[in-house]
């Protein structure tokens, strides 16, 4: 079986490339398609779902919430997937954007060595880092911690060190468990 991930942009693709091999068993292949932002992603969903020919393919749609109403967005995307004949598509909303998943694991940022000898992980318990999904603009927050932070190269260096079982971001946990479940279901079938 193959899982096709539809992402909003490159930094998410780079992150998935690092963590998916740890989540998915060897016999499940994956393909990550990056888009040029939200409009591009949403227009692409119906075409990908309808036009895909290879059997035994599952889809995962990942969209940033960016401060909107995440339940509403998720319902809308689920509807689009059903309307295009793929009700089994896994839709996951990133709250609010990828960088929150990094802030949810400050130890990973320390290990990436983007700031020499940083000890951000000691701050993980304080209010503003305890629930990273609530941070309005996590990319800005990350830039504040890491001067000169760049989205793609930053994602490349941090993702390697992410601990999949200990992340303070609820949307990250929901994503990981969703993908694990998708893989398990496939194994049963």
């Amino acid at each position, binding site marked *: 079986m193959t899982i096709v991930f539809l992402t*909003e*942009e*490159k930094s998410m693709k780079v992150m998935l490339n690092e963590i998916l091999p740890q989540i998915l068993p060897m016999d499940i292949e994956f393909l990550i398609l990056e888009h*040029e*932002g*939200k*409009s*591009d992603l949403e227009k692409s969903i119906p075409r990908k779902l309808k036009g895909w020919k290879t059997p035994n393919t599952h889809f995962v749609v990942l969209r*940033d919430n*960016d401060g909107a109403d995440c339940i509403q967005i998720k319902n809308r995307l689920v509807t689009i997937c059903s309307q295009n004949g793929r009700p089994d598509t896994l839709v996951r909303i990133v709250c609010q954007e990828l960088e929150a998943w990094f802030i949810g694991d400050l130890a990973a940022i320390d290990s990436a060595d983007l700031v020499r000898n940083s000890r951000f992980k000691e701050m993980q318990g304080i209010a503003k880092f305890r629930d990273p999904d609530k941070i309005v603009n996590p990319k800005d927050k990350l830039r504040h911690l890491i001067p*000169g932070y*760049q*989205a*793609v*190269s930053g994602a490349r260096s941090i993702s390697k060190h992410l601990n999949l079982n200990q992340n303070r971001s609820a949307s990250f946990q929901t994503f990981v468990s969703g993908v694990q479940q998708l893989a398990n279901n496939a194994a049963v079938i």
Partner: protein
Amino acid sequence: MQLESLAIKNFKVLQNLHLKNIPPFAVFVGANGSGKSTLFDVFGFLCDSLNHNVRQALQKRGGFKEVVSRGHEEECISVELKLRMRLLDKDRLVTYLVEIGPDANGIPGVSREILRFKRQEFGAPYHFLDFSWGKGFAVFNEEDFDKLDENLDREHQDLESPSTLAIKGLGQFQRFRAASTIRALIENWHVSDFHISAAQGSVEAGFAEHLSTHGENLPLVAQYLYENHRAEFDNVLRTMERRIPGIKNVTASSTTDGRIVLKFQDGNFHDPFISRHVSDGTIKMFAYLLLLHDPTPHPLLCIEEPENQLYPSLLAELAEEFSSYSSNEAQVFVSTHSPDFLNGVELNSIFWLSKDKGFTNVYRAAEDENIVGLVNEGDLPGYLWKAGMFREADPVQ
């Protein structure tokens, strides 16, 4: 150094162009012939004027009549730079103005050259250097800032010729520190005109810290970085390995006739390939990485269309690397036709040029409220550009 503003008059298609609040990283898009190369050539022109003289810089571009804007032949070409820089132990906003026009006999020369900055927070800017047709004055006890204007010592000077810039003539004297600082700054600008064929060859053994304009000293720069900044060189190699499938190592080695040649090691084969037989994109990526990992960055770096010969998915990260190179000390200007490159650029860095009635106008993406709104909603800049949101930039309306 930060170039905060740039005002150009009568330089080819740039008849009247004023860029304000220029960010450390600035990316320009626009139709063919909209003035992107001409904008970068303003910097090249200043470098040439400084390294040689104004007449040679004009000659290289076809002479005054070809350089001055059509229909404005009676006027002066003028370039005004406002630079925020460290000068005489303080951060200052320095204005450097050069005007070039024909003399009574129609021979072009420097009709006016001024260097001015404010000595205090308040008050009118003070002229530290003021020349016209090869004659003028410069202040030489600049460091004594508490003196009243009338007590500062002005030294009258005659330059070699009206075609010589005063910052060149005086910049070599230590007592004119302001002039020599500006001179050193402009001399270190890097306006890239990278020729793959030039960079692919071998070079006479020697020493080079910085990549040359055409890139022919690439093997020497690689050797320098390898021998003196090993960690940076290893960084470059790791990045090459990730981006160019197969590449494992790059070495600069001597040939029997005392030349230096680059060798690229493919992990699948025993013998390395010499640079002449390596793909254009491989050479170009290697040259950019050496440029971007330069331990002493250029105060200003101008690169045209870095996307040529490179695989599209590498471009967003390349854009990030140019952005990382830029800082308070180094500014980067890039022109591009690549939406993939632009997708990796912050909105505040994006400008587009367009031609109106034969001359160039400049627009700033961050000043368009719809573009700002759409990017905040999650669209990427390159995507919006392709969709036609940079209205004036598109050749077909």
